[in-house]
């Protein structure tokens, strides 16, 4: 035992001297990913906290604001408080210190493959270039070119450089874009790069049109935001992040300065830095300590991390300034508030995903299936993996599986392609059968007709005739006539008593049922709502409110505009107007379920036909029922629209008043509870 204790003591002593080896615990943050609908869900931890670098050798950080990782594995940390660049290896051991006595407030640092160090110094208003040994080899001040602008100050805050030495510099207060400097002739200005644009919403446009110059000057100026940070990858593509640009905050710019990414709904609210990994994956660090990892197309893979806010747990940050990724896929976050570099280590799960990312990007679909299957074993809903494996199956011509995974990942293009193939196979094997069945049906109908002619089924036929003559059935059949002859139809509704309320209601109910089916089962490719999501009360409610609201408003309008329609007539006639939808939409729904994107125009055309037809019917009905001229009809339509607006306004005012009353009552009750409590 004594021996054991001795060993324990020595072990403890040794532990004091070594850096942490194992960190194994439930991470203080969750990791999220998204499915094809953008449904955010939890997944296995992507990165676990590994260690923290709190000082370089014996020097603590003062105000660390930027960091760059060299290929050789050294971290260059711009510490504007220390007025120097601190250099350390990945374990935090000091390797060197650059720029003492030269730098004033280094805010950006970038190190190239050959260890040339670019430093953006905001307060000095200069860019310094150091060689490996820390000697200044170049110094660039404000560009003299007139294009840059005489009045524009030069306050470089972040910098990167490409292999030919062209520098891309973000300057504080310079809204024109990234300053592009060439190393030749002491820094010639090449122009602005990757400018952010502003957009005006309709209200602002209107405002600007109406206001006087003086008033306009008082408005908040609508100037484009300067990027917050930037990065460059091995191919020379520039990545920028801009705070406040929401879904366009991350940009991947090609040589021409055009953004290659589509907008992404899963953006960082406060992006602070961006970098790229070995697999062309893009990592964005949020100032609040979140890490977002995207694939090269900008699709979200993971989101993890969070603010510390006094939780005091390893891996939570307070104010992130810079991000870097090393060759082992470890992620480094520079936290200026905690004055440390957080190091995160990829988990076994993430390593699998990275492997598949690499293979998939290379086009080795079949090989990529193996790690993807492992990933899906760990999380069967992982969207990216489902999509990639679906495409891999498609490449292997296993269309059924491809279809399954495409549907899981909501990969509509992939689904369409796979479905085309599956349908093709089905048609090929069933064509003969199908044609046979059609011919058989035609023959049967012919025989039936022949037999009827011969009077063989007199009984059934007479029953059918009787059925046809029931008043309701007759009225329902009338909707078919109305569709084609709205003017005569309206006349009949008004004068011939063809206005059965029951019949109109049946049509309305049918309309609702079909619209619901059309919403929830239009075929996977045409579906706009999530699978498995139903909200029938709102669906039905919406139709009823709009339909009856319009009729009510319309009736109010026509009664004071010499209209002749009664409310019953209006109701019946308008319900009849919906019959094109009731007749044509079911066909669209059926067809929609067997279509791919190639034929989708058929449905679009069908829907257009329905809409136009219904609109024309409505117009004619309004006109005929009330015996209006065209001019009067248009007038009535406008007044109805106005009435609807007023009605909406009235309802919203009532709503606000009611909620205030309720709020008042609650407050009184709470007060009473409080008083009783005392």
């Amino acid at each position: 035992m004594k021996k054991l204790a001795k060993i324990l003591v020595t072990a403890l002593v040794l532990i004091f001297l070594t850096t942490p080896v194992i960190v194994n615990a439930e991470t203080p943050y969750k990791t999220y990913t998204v499915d094809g609908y953008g449904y955010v869900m939890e997944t296995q931890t992507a990165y676990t906290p590994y260690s923290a670098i709190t000082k370089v050798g014996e020097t603590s950080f003062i105000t660390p604001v930027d960091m760059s990782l060299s290929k050789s594995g050294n971290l260059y940390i711009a510490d504007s408080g220390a007025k120097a660049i601190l250099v350390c290896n990945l374990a935090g051991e000091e390797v060197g210190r650059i720029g003492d006595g030269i730098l004033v407030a280094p805010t950006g640092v970038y190190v190239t493959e050959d260890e040339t160090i670019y430093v953006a110094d905001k307060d000095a208003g200069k860019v310094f270039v150091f060689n490996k040994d820390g000697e200044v080899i170049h110094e660039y001040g404000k560009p003299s070119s007139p294009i840059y602008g005489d009045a524009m100050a030069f306050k470089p805050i972040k910098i990167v450089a490409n292999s030919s030495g062209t520098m891309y510099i973000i300057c504080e207060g310079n809204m024109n874009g990234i300053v592009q400097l060439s190393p030749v002739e002491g820094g010639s200005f090449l122009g602005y790069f990757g400018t952010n644009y502003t957009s005006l919403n309709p209200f602002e446009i209107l405002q600007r049109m109406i206001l006087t110059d003086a008033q306009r000057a008082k408005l908040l100026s609508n100037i484009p935001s300067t990027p917050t940070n930037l990065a460059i990858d091995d191919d020379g593509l520039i990545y920028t992040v801009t705070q406040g640009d929401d879904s366009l905050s991350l940009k991947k710019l090609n040589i021409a300065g055009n953004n290659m990414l589509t907008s992404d709904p899963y953006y960082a609210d406060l992006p602070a830095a961006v970098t790229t990994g070995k697999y062309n994956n893009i990592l964005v660090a949020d100032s609040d300590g979140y890490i977002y990892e995207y694939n090269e197309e900008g699709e979200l893979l993971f989101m993890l991390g969070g603010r510390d806010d006094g939780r005091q747990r390893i891996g939570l940050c307070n104010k992130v300034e810079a991000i870097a990724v090393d060759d082992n896929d470890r992620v480094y976050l520079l936290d200026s508030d905690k004055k440390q570099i957080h190091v995160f280590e990829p988990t076994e799960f993430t390593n699998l995903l990275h492997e598949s990312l690499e293979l998939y990007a290379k086009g080795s679909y079949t090989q990529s299936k193996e790690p993807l299957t492992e990933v899906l074993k760990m999380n069967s809903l992982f969207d990216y993996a489902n999509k990639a494996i679906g495409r891999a199956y498609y490449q292997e011509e296993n269309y059924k599986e491809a279809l399954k995974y495409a549907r899981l990942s909501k990969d509509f293009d992939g689904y369409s392609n796979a479905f085309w193939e599956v349908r093709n196979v089905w048609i090929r094997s069933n064509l003969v059968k199908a044609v046979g069945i059609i011919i058989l049906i035609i023959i049967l109908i012919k025989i039936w007709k022949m037999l009827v002619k011969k009077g063989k089924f007199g009984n059934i036929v007479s029953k059918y005739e009787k059925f046809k003559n029931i008043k309701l059935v007759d009225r329902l059949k009338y909707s078919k006539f109305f569709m084609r002859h709205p003017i005569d139809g309206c006349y009949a509704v008004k004068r011939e008593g063809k206005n059965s309320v029951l019949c109109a209601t049946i049509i309305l109910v049918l309309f609702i049922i079909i619209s619901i089916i059309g919403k929830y089962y239009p075929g996977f490719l045409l579906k706009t709502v999530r699978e498995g999501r139903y909200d029938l009360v709102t669906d039905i409610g919406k139709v009823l409110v709009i339909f009856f609201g319009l009729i009510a408003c319309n009736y109010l309008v026509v009664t004071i505009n010499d209209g002749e329609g009664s409310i019953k007539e209006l109701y019946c006639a308008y319900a009849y107007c919906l019959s094109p939808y009731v007749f044509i939409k079911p066909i669209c729904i059926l067809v929609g379920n067997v279509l791919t994107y190639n034929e989708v125009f058929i449905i679009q055309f069908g829907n257009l036909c329905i809409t136009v037809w219904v609109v024309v019917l409505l117009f004619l009905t309004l006109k005929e029922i009330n015996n209006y001229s065209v001019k009067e009809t248009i007038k009535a339509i406008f007044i109805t629209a106005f009435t609807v607006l007023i009605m909406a306004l009235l309802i919203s005012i009532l709503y606000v008043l009611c909620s205030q009353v309720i709020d008042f009552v609650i407050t009184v009750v709470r007060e009473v509870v409080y008083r009783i409590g005392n």
Partner: protein
Amino acid sequence: MATKNVKNRKKLIIAIICVMIVVVLVITGVNVAGGHISNTNITYAEAATITPPQAELSSDKTQNKEEIKGHKLVAANDNYELYLKEDTLSIIVRDVKTGEIMESVVDDATELQNVNDTWKSFLQSGVVVEVQEDTNTMQKKAGVNNASVNVTYVDGGFKAKIDYPNYKFGFELEVLLYDDGSITAYIPESSIYEESDKVKIGNIYVFPMLGNTCLDEKEGYMFVPDGNGALIYLDDKEGRFDSGYTQRVYGSDIGIGESYVLSLLWDKYETHNDSENVLAPIFGMVYTDAKLGYLAVIEAGAEEATIMATPNGAYTDYNWITSSFRKSATYIQPTSNSGGSVTKVTDRIQYDIKIRYMFVNGDKANYTGLAEKYRDYLIEKGELQEKEDSFNIRLDFLGSDVENWLLSKKSVAMTTTDNIRDIYKELQSEGVNNIFSLYKGWQDGGIYDIPVTKVDTEGSIGSKSDLKKLAKDAKDMGIDFYLYTDGLRANPDTGNTTFNTVKKMDKRLYTESTYKSVYEKMVYWTPDKSVFNVNQLKDSMLDNGLNNLALSGISNTLFTYTISDTMKTRLTTEYIYKNMYENLDKDMNLVLCEPISEYWKYTDAFVDMPVSDSDFIYTDKSIPFLSIVLKGMVPMYSDYINFEANEREYFLKLVETGIYPSYYLTYEDSSKLIYTNSSDIYTSKYSTYKDRIIDTYNELKAIDDKTSGAYIVNHEILDNGVVAVTYDNGVRILVNYSDKEQTAYGETVDAMSYKVGEVQ
């Protein structure tokens, strides 16, 4: 006409008043309708029974002894001596054999010059009170220098009457030394008095600086009960931390809002994982060089205690560990919807305070020694009995959950009773014989249709007789099959939760966000209602011949709440649950999920045992403290391995800690759960896990064959990333977490691997 109008108006006013009265009555919880159940009314003295100590008091040997730093000897035994300095109530504990001491105040005058007055008083007092003045949310620290102290000597120690004349309150402290080397500090509730309406006792610290060290003057560590256990080394932290470990024993109190910042991602998603709860009221301090240490066990008042371990650099240059006891607290009482509120102070929370410091020295002065001490203590007190501890793999099944469908909910069946039987058969044919199972979501309406008060299965997973048959078959197969339910939560969407639900101190209903789409909110049952529900379920289960029950929620949640304006404390909550477990344990086989130490004796297994700590920035090392205490006593099952991103590392952790593996399984693919409240289960399909279950089982079973029933006697973390665990039957397991081959004790262990051997 006019009179009629007036009459109508009067009627209307009367109607409104009536409605308001009803609303007020309902809100204040007066019985105006049925559904209430009677509530337990007990005093603190009934709720907390302190078992008298077994050991003898140490005799008084005060004669002819030298003073140490102005402290007089008050009691002694063969191993330790207790010294006291009256004016500051400072004690010193001395190891008789080595002469090493532990002090309870700082008396280094030069060091203290840099400390402000508040902290100076804190560092120099044996007892510190945080004073609650009016509704001031900042409490002032008042050490003994603000008080008058009267010490009387008794057998084995002393009694001190402490009065704070400025604040008009006071209490008595009794400190005794026992022959087994333990010292108790006791503040009886009956001795506490508060004479001012405005000034109250906020928190009490007893010997806050016991065992303190300055910077890195001593080698050693502080032990905190975070998760399975964690150490904070007594090295120089170089000012890295501005606060220390502060956690409420048995988890936070939802009743008295402890404010925290909630930052949601995209305004919607909670991205933080909660830190581990403190499951046992213990903490410790060990000097490894001086070979002296103690384990402190809070014997009374743990429910209101907070454990604080503060490394140097945070506030002062000293390392100290203590527990503070909450006697009153402030809370916010909202008075309007638009944010109007007043701050209020609770009445005094009534309970005795008692801490037992169990000293260790020599070879036992390390965390394994502390764990052994705690194990012996629990056994001696009857808080822990040796249970049948044979190796099992835990396979939990999710029966069903619901998703929104049309106007109502649709059941999503994940694992039927027949599926489970087939899985058992298949696994047993592969040699996986020892299985322990919890069946979740078996009840009608799925897993979140809670409470469950009778055996009524969800139709889609099988009928009641199917369930009974499965339970019987499982028993025949030798499988421990338990029905699981949450005893704490109530779902307002599936049942009536108007009455008997927990209201916080501010008399508002407590609601818990699920951050899920089907059921967005849950509420808590009052303890009495929980007991009522569980007992109903028990009767129903016994009628159906089912007697294996697993409970969560009430196994580790304590809260302050109000009933008809009366404050009920966490102690009451615990007492009510404990009584229930006492009865339940007689009739049924009971399993509790992550139970707090008060309930350990009732559970057949420790389910959801944390394998590690919460990774606080100030903790240096995670140690399997609770595992060392419980290994060989109670079977422990881990969290679910499915959701682990580092499977291999987690597996090694199980090898090291002796915790048994757990999987959460469904027969159907987990993608079916995406629209349910169980959407956080993103991987669980049995067929994908089958092979891994078999491998894990075989590998861990082979290790368990050698360690079965044995206690852990030593646990060391070596410098090369290898951990060595020694059992009392001579088996030693070496676990290598590093990514290189390593050698330890003459054995070579592969990277990310382990080796089982014997101690030579």
